């Protein structure tokens, strides 16, 4: 068990280190940021001082070391646009993004789990066919379109809900349904597949001939066995949701990291881009790691050997 945790931790750290190299290389590809940061009337001496301060005059590998040290201290530089530490800006925006992703995940699970279980319990029925159609539709609908259509229906045609904004409960409804619907498609398919497999397993057959009530077989045994891969997948799904949130936030003017990232790209505000990407990456990988450990706890075959 300890060995498993250490291995996974090691892998995560290596991936993270590689990601910092990748982001560093990308940052250097964008060229010299000096003209973007300093006003056009800055003297050559000012520019030289700036380059020295940020280590831009040193060899590339030394620059990386400086970059890495700064990153580890949460220092991604000052936002060119807001004149504030980029890291602080992103940190402020991460809250709304996590809230949106979390509520969407809840929506996805609440839709996907019952649909997947129902389809698995009635193979070949019209219900199963309807669930399949739902899932293949959900996987193909981009969130920016479903979001716009929901705004059109529930904010414009029937003015029931706000089309944008943040802070109130009703602000959550449309964005979370948009993102949750998208995510529910894959949750449905995964639940269906795993539930079908679990229901076919020998121990379910055995419980049937022992006369264990169907309610117990489905909920206590089949569902728990099916839930192991589903839990793992939900962790990965959370990463996907953080990605999907970028687009959804744009549609609903949600003050999250995605919105901030896109704005930063449009304004060539690279410190904010780097901080947003790096922070999201750390978040996604931490969740994946946590999910792997949770899996180990849930499965006695891993935790008890």
């Amino acid at each position, binding site marked *: 068990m300890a060995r498993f945790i250490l291995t996974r931790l090691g892998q995560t750290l290596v991936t993270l280190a590689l990601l910092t190299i990748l982001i560093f290389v990308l940052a250097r590809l964008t060229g010299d940021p000096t003209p973007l940061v300093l006003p056009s009337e800055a003297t050559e001496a000012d520019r030289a001082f700036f380059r020295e301060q940020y280590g831009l005059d040193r060899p590339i590998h030394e620059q990386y070391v400086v970059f890495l040290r700064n990153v580890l201290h949460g220092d991604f530089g000052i936002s060119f646009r807001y004149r504030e530490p980029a890291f602080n800006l992103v940190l402020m925006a991460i809250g709304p993004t996590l809230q949106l992703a979390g509520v969407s995940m809840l929506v996805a699970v609440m839709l996907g789990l019952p649909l997947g279980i129902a389809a698995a319990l009635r193979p070949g029925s019209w219900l199963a066919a309807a669930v399949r159609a739902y899932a293949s539709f959900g996987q193909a609908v981009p969130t920016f379109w479903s979001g716009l259509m929901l705004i059109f229906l529930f904010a414009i045609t029937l003015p029931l809900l706000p089309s944008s904004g943040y802070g109130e409960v009703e602000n959550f409804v449309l964005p979370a349904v948009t993102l949750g619907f998208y995510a529910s498609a894959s949750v449905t398919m995964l639940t269906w597949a795993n539930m079908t497999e679990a229901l076919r397993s020998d121990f379910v057959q055995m419980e049937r001939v022992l006369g264990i009530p169907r309610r117990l077989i489905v909920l206590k045994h089949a569902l*728990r066995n099916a839930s192991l891969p589903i839990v793992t997948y939900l962790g990965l799904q959370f990463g996907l949701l953080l990605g999907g949130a970028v687009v959804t936030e744009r549609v609903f003017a949600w003050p999250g990291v995605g919105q901030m990232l896109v704005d930063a790209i449009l304004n060539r505000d690279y410190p904010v881009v780097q901080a947003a990407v790096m922070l999201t990456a750390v978040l996604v990988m931490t969740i994946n790691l946590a999910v792997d450990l949770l899996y180990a706890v849930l499965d*006695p075959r891993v935790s008890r050997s």
Partner: protein
Amino acid sequence: MTLPNEPLLVVRGLNIEFGPPERPVRAVADADLTLAPGEILGIAGESGSGKTTLCSAIMRTLPRSARVSGRVEFAGKELLSLSEREMARLRGRDLSMVLQNPMTSLDPLYTIGNQLEEVLRERRRGGAEVRPGGAVEVLRRVHLTAPELRVRQYPHQLSGGMRQRVLVGMATAAAPRLLIADEPTTALDASIQDEILILFRELRDTAGSAVVIVTHDLSAIRRLSDRVIIMYAGRIVEEGPTAEVFRAPRHPYTRALLGSLPRIEDEEVVLQPIPGQVPDLARLPPGCAFAARCPVALDACRAERPQESTVGERHRVFCWQAAAGGAA
């Protein structure tokens, strides 16, 4: 309430079909059998002979796509016409089953104790309390070593033989009147097969349960069962008291099966496989299904299906040759 001499289980004209109605696969055809309380019956045949399907029909656990006709009477109740709910009440309590693979027949995510207690709780008779040590008691009854430890362990921590003991314990926790064991020893090491078989005999001797043991392992049947049924391509081909069938098999298929038993001749294990292949159940010949592989088949065997003939006390066989006394 069944009288001592009244049969516990009566199967009459049981037919089970799968696949499209215009080209059905007949997994079981015209099966008749009778089982007395406390009797041990062995059902033997190659894989695909319909023996497992027959048992699933008795337990009513066939997939929905199966078409079943005929009668299955258990203690005077017609099982095929019961609702799923009524049937679920009988399972585990009055008739129970042990499935083929002990390695995967326990839920890997719960302890042995949890699963045993679940069975005890759900299968107890009328309002009886679940006693705290019940699970340990069940394990002790099936001679599992260190039962107090086992109830806290997970299935993957037990060997195949231990898991089979747990499963037998679960299936017999409510002292059912009928236990069906489907290939109970096939997945186990030869060294522990005997010990598992002994459990079934103990069950009969202590609880008076009838046992149906389904296997392709004829030696298990010879050691355990009172009576034996031989199946081939979905049909019963021979039935009789174990000792008599093994001493004087009448159907050529039974003889071939007995010939295929590994025998020790001059310190060497000899295994004679039966030449030919099990026929396609969707394209059975009009006559005897075994005719194509039968060493003594006549034209009549290929033309017409053999009728039942009685060849001894409670010994019947479906074979033209055996009926005519020619090959017998």
